Each structure stands twice: as structure tokens, then as C-alpha cells.
């Protein structure tokens, strides 16, 4: 049972206004993941205050970095259920958690930030981890 859209909309907007593409259906996810070239990132957004509340600004900060994934998208846990299920299918056998962040290179999952690595952390700290990965994975892919 999803939340009222008016409650979730600002949480969606926080990422989409930063240039993150929203994937709302399983077909959207498949289309996004069909391009195996280069680097991609999927953020599993969530209404959770203590984890996603830090993850979204952390992602936004990280996206200011010179190196970043070629394609960036988000699915919303608990809201766009089919899209989230489909996205998790691309995370191999990583246990489901939200919020979480998956980074792919040439279609392969190369880095995963699970919920437990987000909860209780400041956005700056989350951004720091992501930019480190961007510099390592995305810059090298150019």
C-alpha cells in the first residue's frame, strides 16, 4: 500500500531535480539497464527518515563531483513496487534494503551501498564514499 503521493513527491523531487531519472515501472528499469556500456547508478529511494533523509542529500552532493556515472536513475521503495523488484533483480543476490545505492560498470554490479552503511551517517559522509567510488570506477571507465 503506497504512501499518499503528496507525501512522497518532495522525496522524489529531491533526486529528480538533481538530474536523476525516475524509473517507475519494470519496463523502465529494463530499458535503463539494457545499455551495458559505461557506468550507471541506481538509487533505491525510501521514505525512511533516518537513512534516506541522509542518502538523498548525500547523493546530490556526490553528483557535484567531476567524475560520476554516465547514467543515474532511481526507484522508490514501497511506492513503485514493480520497478523496485525489477531493479533488485539486477543487484545479484544482495539482500534487499532501502535506501540503498548500486553502481554498475559495463552492466556488472561493482559497488553496493546497503542501508546499514547509510543509516546514522551525515550526507557529507555518504557523499564522500560515493565520490571515492566515482573517482575509482567512473573516471577509470572514461
Amino acid at each position, binding site marked *: *500500500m*503506497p*504512501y499518499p503521493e503528496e*507525501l512522497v513527491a518532495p522525496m522524489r523531487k529531491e533526486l529528480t531535480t538533481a538530474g536523476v531519472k525516475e524509473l517507475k515501472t519494470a519496463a523502465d528499469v529494463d530499458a535503463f539497464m539494457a545499455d551495458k556500456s559505461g557506468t550507471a547508478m541506481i538509487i533505491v529511494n*525510501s*521514505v*525512511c*527518515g*533516518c*537513512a534516506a533523509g541522509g542518502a538523498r542529500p548525500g547523493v546530490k552532493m556526490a553528483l557535484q563531483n567531476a567524475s560520476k556515472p554516465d547514467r543515474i536513475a532511481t526507484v522508490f*521503495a*514501497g511506492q513503485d513496487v514493480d520497478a523496485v523488484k525489477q531493479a533488485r533483480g539486477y543487484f*545479484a*543476490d*544482495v*539482500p534487499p*534494503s*532501502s535506501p540503498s545505492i548500486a553502481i554498475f560498470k559495463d552492466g*556488472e*554490479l*561493482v*559497488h*553496493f*551501498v*546497503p*542501508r*546499514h*552503511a*547509510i*543509516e*546514522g*551517517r551525515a550526507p557529507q559522509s555518504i557523499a564522500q*564514499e560515493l565520490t571515492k*567510488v566515482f573517482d575509482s570506477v567512473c573516471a577509470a571507465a572514461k
Partner: protein
Amino acid sequence: MGTFHQDKSELHGITVVVDTNGPKVYVGRCDDMDDEKVILLDVDVHEDGQNGRSKQQYVERAAKFGVWKKHDRVILPRAEVSSVKRLGEMHSQLGAVATATAVAEPPKKADPKPVPAPVAAKPADGEVVALTANAQAEVKRLLALEKPGAGLRLGVKGGGCSGLSYKLEFDQKKEGDLVIAYEGFSVFLDRKSTIYLRGVTLDHQKGLQGKGFVFHNPNATNTCGCGESFSV
């Protein structure tokens, strides 16, 4: 104090590794801990040497990818606990670089000795919420003590670690309320909250390991460590 719950421990809502003096190590979200016990939610447990992995090897894998939960709730006597650490700290130390071939294993089968979840009544067809016998008795006791003539208001409000929080208070009936009559008192729900509370059972747990009033929500896709907030 917990992130959103001032009456909880500092690690409330945080995924932790609880090592024991014995062969077992637990990973789960800390609900609460004090001098007597550690309460974990959404828990996985590993025994030293299980699947050819030491406790440390298991924890390192858990720190990278998370765990597949085997138990909803586990209560560990503090005397058996040797340490409680944030799993996220270990994730940072490890760098957490995942590869498609080095991922966590999906669950095979549940541990044979799970801590049983409390048995709760379910709402009958057509009913929005149900109260167990324990919950009814406690509500009646508290109403008689604190607010004779009032009823029990159940509701939902925004906020909490998992998005929505349960509301439970003694109140008078308001216009538009859905009223559920129990012997000796009534339960009031505002119309908006009924959307989120449909199918919910309210229980009351007593004793050392109990946690007072507990909501069992079959629609919740995620619950906060304390069980006081949820998402659907």
C-alpha cells in the same frame, strides 16, 4: 537516545553486530538495549564455522552486503553478549566493493530455535483492527486508572524512522470517527488512518521481555527498529 525515539538506546534503529560469549553472532536492527538485554529486529544469526565461515568472515560479508533476515525479533540476555557494534562502521572499514560473484547468500532455511513472535489475534473479515485479549485487558486497566469514560484512539501520523508512526491515546469520540466497540470501552479511528491500519492487530506484551503495546501490521513492508513506525 535513539534517532527519533528519546526513550530508546543510542543504537535504536541502527543495524548492529552482536557477538556473544558463545559460538553465535547476530546481525540485526537494534530495537533497544539495557543492562539486562539486547533486543534485535530483522535478525540473521551465524554460528562459528557454519558454512565453513568463522564469525569474523561472516561479519565481513554481512558488512559488505547486509543479511537475509531469519527472525523478526530476538532478545539476547546481556550476560551472553560480548560486544555490540554498528555494522555500518565495518562497512566503511572494508570499503564495501561488491562484485557480481561475491555476494551474500540468500537464506536457506530458518534457524531451528527462533525466538517466537507473540501470538496475536487477527481482525475478522470486515473489521479494520483487532485487539488481543491482553491488549483489551491493559486498555481497560489504564482507562479505569487514567481516563474513565474515554476510549482508545488509534491512528497514524507522518514521521518516525520508517515513514509513518502509530498513534495510541485515550480520547473522546470525534465526528467522522469509525468506532469499534469492545467490552467496556470503544476504539476510535479517524477515516484517514483506517487506510493504513486495516488488518492491524494491537497486542500488549508484559514481563521482562515484553515491550508494552505492539502493533502487528500485515501491510507494512518495512518497520522501524522499535516497531513504532512503518512503511507500506
